[in-house]
């Protein structure tokens, strides 16, 4: 960073959405390096109270910014060239520590980028750092991290949601306009809701998982966080599409997401499934979501409030069979033999492996490995894993049916606003229930998105949009339209609004 520090003007640009930052860069109002310096200054300054990052990438960010400036000068810049981005520390970054917030991967530096990061590098993005998460993405509050405690920028005594809490918090706090998260059961949408920003979980198979440290392979997707629909569209545009290194990516063409914005929501058929308004949902959340649905209706959408998705209640148990089962295999490779944490002071090879795993993994991770191992065991497979897969098929069919005559479903993203740090850490089931509205979408594989739709007790509430497979364009178009009718997405957390500028 330059010794003088970025000017207030540069911080003002940093507060803009990414697409406007890109316009200023192209116009030559400032350089990518100046923008990167501002972003780095702000994320560093904020992090003492926010705890959003595990690793900062200052040196690399500035080098990327210089390259971006060269591209901007040569007229070879894309919409993300020079834009500061936060990357969830579950995504492999070549040569940069990638920990999954686990002691198990302390000191681990991947030798290749994950596909998504490689694509953003190619697009000229600037990575400011690796953001905090629940260990191996297992959690809904980012409290299960071996390295940092992330706070909600709207109330530092509260959680940012999770597992992509760091990515959500840094975007909400204005450190970066965009970040990447992963969503296995709500890990993008729920923290987006709790932090008052937008977050999108793409259709399963829309975005490559290659190089993303695996938790539950059949459920998770990488997706964008942003402060408006256009930014989210930009980032999704850059990362979506077939990847020869990921056999589960689909050969479905990626449309130009922003091109569809002009169509608006006139005549859009919107379904509201009752089953998502679960027991125990906070009144303020319910009210904000109802109000948002009314906004859609007032602006020409055709709202059907009588949509049934009866199998949705089974999503939670199905999720907690399938995800831990896959995790129990995905995490088997961490044995201390090849990389990461390794315990050596044991009598035998087997004991070393046991000690490595016993000491390297946190409690929540161990809990899920044990649940998954049990569910897959001989004699239990049919009763648990196989049955869960059958119910999964039913849930998928329910979504297909509900979306056969609706373009979009609207639901709450989470049943509560951000809860207090430590409030649910001793009660795993209470924590799991916070993902009740988001889990079913991962089970079905459809795309889902959370959009800020109001406040309850001074804390942000999220509206969840669910679409047909590979119709992210519809979600983004609806989110963009909603953002023109309301200004919830423009509200910034007061405590941190001017942070960085004065730092």
């Amino acid at each position, binding site marked *: 960073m330059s010794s003088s520090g970025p000017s207030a003007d540069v911080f003002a640009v940093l507060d803009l959405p990414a697409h406007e930052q890109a316009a200023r860069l192209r116009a030559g109002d400032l350089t990518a390096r100046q923008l990167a310096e501002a972003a780095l200054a702000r994320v560093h300054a904020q992090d003492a109270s926010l705890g959003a990052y595990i690793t900062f990438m200052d040196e690399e960010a500035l080098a990327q910014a210089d390259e971006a400036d060269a591209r901007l000068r040569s007229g070879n810049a894309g919409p993300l060239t020079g834009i500061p981005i936060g990357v969830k520390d579950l995504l492999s970054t070549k040569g940069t520590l990638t920990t999954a917030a686990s002691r198990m991967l302390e000191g681990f530096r991947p030798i290749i980028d994950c596909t998504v990061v490689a694509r953003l590098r190619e697009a000229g993005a600037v990575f400011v750092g690796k953001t905090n998460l629940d260990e191996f993405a297992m959690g809904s509050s980012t409290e299960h991290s071996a390295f940092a405690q992330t706070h909600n920028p709207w109330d530092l005594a509260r959680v940012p949601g999770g597992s992509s809490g760091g990515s959500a918090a840094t975007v909400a706090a204005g450190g970066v306009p965009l970040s990447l998260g992963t969503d296995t059961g709500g890990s993008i949408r729920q923290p987006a809701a709790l932090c008052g920003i937008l977050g999108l979980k793409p259709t399963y198979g829309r975005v490559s998982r290659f190089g993303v440290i695996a938790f539950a392979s059949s459920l998770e997707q990488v997706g964008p966080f942003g402060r408006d629909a256009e930014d989210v569209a930009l980032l999704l545009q850059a990362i979506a599409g077939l990847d020869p*290194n990921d056999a589960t990516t689909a050969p479905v063409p990626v449309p130009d997401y922003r091109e569809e914005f002009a169509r608006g929501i006139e005549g859009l058929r919107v379904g509201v499934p009752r089953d998502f308004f679960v027991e125990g949902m906070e009144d303020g959340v319910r009210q904000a979501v109802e109000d948002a649905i009314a906004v859609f209706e007032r602006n020409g959408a055709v709202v059907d409030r009588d949509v049934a998705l009866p199998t949705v209640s089974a999503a939670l148990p199905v999720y907690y069979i399938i995800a831990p089962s896959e995790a129990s*295999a995905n995490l*088997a490779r961490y044995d201390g033999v090849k990389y990461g944490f390794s315990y050596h002071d044991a009598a035998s090879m087997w004991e070393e492996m046991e000690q490595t795993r016993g000491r390297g993994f946190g409690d929540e991770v161990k809990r899920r490995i044990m649940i998954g191992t049990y569910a897959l065991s001989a004699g239990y*497979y049919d009763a648990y894993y196989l049955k869960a897969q059958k119910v999964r098929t039913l849930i998928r069919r329910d979504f297909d049916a509900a979306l056969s005559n609706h373009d979009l479903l609207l639901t709450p993203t989470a049943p509560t606003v951000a809860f207090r740090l430590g409030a649910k850490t001793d009660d795993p089931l209470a924590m799991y229930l916070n993902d009740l509205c988001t889990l079913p979408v991962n089970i079905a594989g459809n795309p889902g998105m959370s959009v800020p739709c109001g406040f309850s007790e001074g804390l942000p509430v999220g509206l969840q949009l669910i679409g047909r497979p590979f119709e992210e364009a519809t979600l983004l178009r609806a989110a963009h339209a909603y953002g023109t009718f309301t200004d919830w997405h423009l509200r910034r957390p007061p405590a941190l609004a001017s942070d960085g500028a004065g730092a």
Partner: protein
Amino acid sequence: MTTAVATEYEVVVGLEVHVQLKTQSKMFCGCAADYFDVEPNTRVCPVCLGMPGMLPVINRAAVEYTVLTGLALGCAIPQHSKFDRKNYPYPDLMKGYQISQYDQPLCVGGGLEIEVDGVPHYVRLERIHLEEDTARLLHREDAHGEGYSLLDVNRSGVPLMEIVSRPDIRSAAQAGAFLRKLRQTLRYLEVSDADMEKGSFRCDANVSIRPRGSETLGAKVEVKNMNSFRAVMRAIESEVERQTEVLTSGGVVVQETRGYIDATGTTVSQRSKEEAHDYRYFPEPDLPPLDITPAEVEELQRRLPELPDARKQRFEAEFGLTPSEAALLTETRAEADSYEEAVALACPHGVDKGRARAVAHWFIGDVARLRHQEGGEVELSATPLTSAHIAELVTLVEGGTITLTTAKEVLEIAFESGSRPSAIVEERGLAQVRDEGEIDRIAREVIEANPKPVADYAAGKAAALQFLVGQVMRQTRGRADANSVADVLRRHLDAG
């Protein structure tokens, strides 16, 4: 236990054969699959090292090789197949699980026709599935005698095809015949080197015995660690002997895994049924289901080469060979190809069974002998000799240009030098002496110089003529036709 008559037991054996496929790249990544004689840990990448976040991509060639094998062995190829994760912890397993196939293998059923002492026997197959090989642990000892292990990841992810027979094998000899036939077929298909010593062909045996006439299977003992066909046969024999002893002494055979010890030729217990792994199989979520369309199967069916049995039968019918000649010439695909090429060249106007058989005799006789001298199983293509040489040799003999004796000499020269037989004959003046006058002159000289055999001949000793023929042949350095030499000699002697 008192039994009036000793129970006679029937041997029941099923084999599980692991075959490394010789594809260019590994099963799920782009690394070269050939690791033999390669510096350890040089054919590796993040995928086969099991680094976090890495994903498998199916090597379609390995799938094709497996289906090709299935088609050759008469298996059904289901349209839907899939990969599963087989979970077990071991340091040579880079991901902590092996990607294999559990309940929907690529090939189902089928079988292999074998023959032992002229008795044919059909061994049915259960299935053929595809999986990935593990890394290799090399056990070492340090200066203090403390054991440690080194890990070579080159083998990790090499495509491995598992062929599982049904328990249709009734003797060690049948097991040997099954393995030989299987290896021959795999080599014909060119899908694997199928070399047990190099580890590209591995075999475990499930051995049990039961009272003859019984339909139920006895407790199954899985025998591992055999590294040659001979070892497999000895392991089965020893295991059958052990189980028979256990039963006849009133004991019970327990289901377990046993290891074969080559030095003693016996098996020792490794793992009981209770200690068996629970592999916790579940469908591999990183790979989409594997669909093989009927069109793909048809395409592979077309790629199937003529298989050993069919080729043997055709050789008998088309070239007039005996079953044993045909078997020898179809032992390997390369041998059969070389033979057919030579026949085609020796018979430019269509197959002449006489010439085809003459070609066969060269292949089986002198050519095989020369190749054997070169250190066992040297392929013809690895010697200077070609099919064209052999065809030319046969043509020279059949046309009377050289005698059989000369031909053998020419063959040896061609085998060493790679020169064409016609060129050798020309260069060295080896063409047959056909000049009647010349043979007549030498015959008279020989009669003159050998009064004793001449007298013997006159006394009615037929063997004496053979001696005189031999003398003439020696003078002509074998370039004369022995029959006409005998005629000329007889004419002089009888007249004399």
